[in-house]
């Protein structure tokens, strides 16, 4: 009996470690990228957007220099600026991830604009995306697709 209990416990513990609480979290060097998600699209004629949080646990800054993904012919980090209730969007250029800090790409701020969709983004599906950093190099993530009207990874 105790043996069965022990086995159950150890496999439970194993599962706990195999699947940490932050399910969508990938480490690359000093960086931890977490909670990626993208917005579903209607067909492929209009661009969509992906979001992610990048934590830098190291003691020096890193820079997000590029994005690669098969889903978009031109993924690009964009920034929304809102002044006096007027919002405009423009390419953000390289994004610095300060040491011991985090940069959150989220609606109303930074997003990865998925221009030239190669296929429709269907809610519930996933696609692979690679973030390219100056120091940490290439970090691969699997991006879950949420609804068109989603506003965060918790949905």
């Amino acid at each position, binding site marked *: 009996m105790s043996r069965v209990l022990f086995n159950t416990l150890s496999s439970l513990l194993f599962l706990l470690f195999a699947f940490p609480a932050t399910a969508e979290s990938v480490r690359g060097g000093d960086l931890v990228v977490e909670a990626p998600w993208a*917005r579903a699209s209607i067909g492929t004629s209009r661009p969509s957007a992906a979001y992610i949080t990048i934590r830098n646990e190291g003691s020096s800054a890193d820079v997000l220099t590029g994005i690669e993904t098969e889903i978009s012919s*031109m993924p*690009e980090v964009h920034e929304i600026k*809102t002044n*006096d*209730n*007027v919002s405009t969007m423009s390419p953000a250029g390289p994004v610095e991830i300060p040491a011991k800090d985090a940069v959150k790409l989220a*609606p109303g701020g930074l997003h990865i604009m998925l221009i030239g969709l190669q296929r429709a983004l269907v809610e519930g599906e996933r696609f692979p995306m690679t973030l390219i950093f100056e120091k940490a190099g290439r970090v691969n993530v699997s991006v879950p697709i949420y609804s068109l*009207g989603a*506003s965060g990874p918790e949905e």
Partner: protein
Amino acid sequence: MKTVRLTLWGAVVVASAAFLWLYTSQGSNQRFVSELSQNTDTLRPEFSLTDHQGNAVTEQTYRGKWLLVFFGFTNCPDICPTTLGELAQLMDLLGPDAQKTQPLFISIDPERDRVETMAEYVSAFHPSIVGLTGTETEVTATAKSFKAFFEKLPQETAPDGYTMGHTSAVYLISPEGVFVRTYSYGTSPEKIAADVQQRL
């Protein structure tokens, strides 16, 4: 002869003043929304547009309903879908009170957002959201009437080579058609619901 010349000169002065006034008021487009906070009870937005089902509509079409009006464009991947998603949540939060309100999504990119595009787009968010578009002239007149701002921004990497800057606040218009307030981008659906419900 002298009076004719004098009258003509007078007309020139009046026309120049009018031109200057128009020119400067266009230049201050960007401040329209903040001006709203000082001058709220007089604004009665008017429009003449086409809804996503192809019907010609005006502000009169929606008299009797609290309007939640958002300007945007369907090629917008961030602000617009986020706000429309939140308006959809808002309608669900309002429950039976949703019948007293009408969310309107007005395109400021009529070149790309035709009636069919609007139909496909708004219906993906919530059955209650109505999408409006029109000719460039109609859309410009509508934005002016709401004191909303929009501009076409050339951008090399953007689809079709341009993107749009636009007022991103949601307008609340009373059932009598009078401007009440704006909710700036990112105001939670819960907050908007509470604010709307205390007015019903």
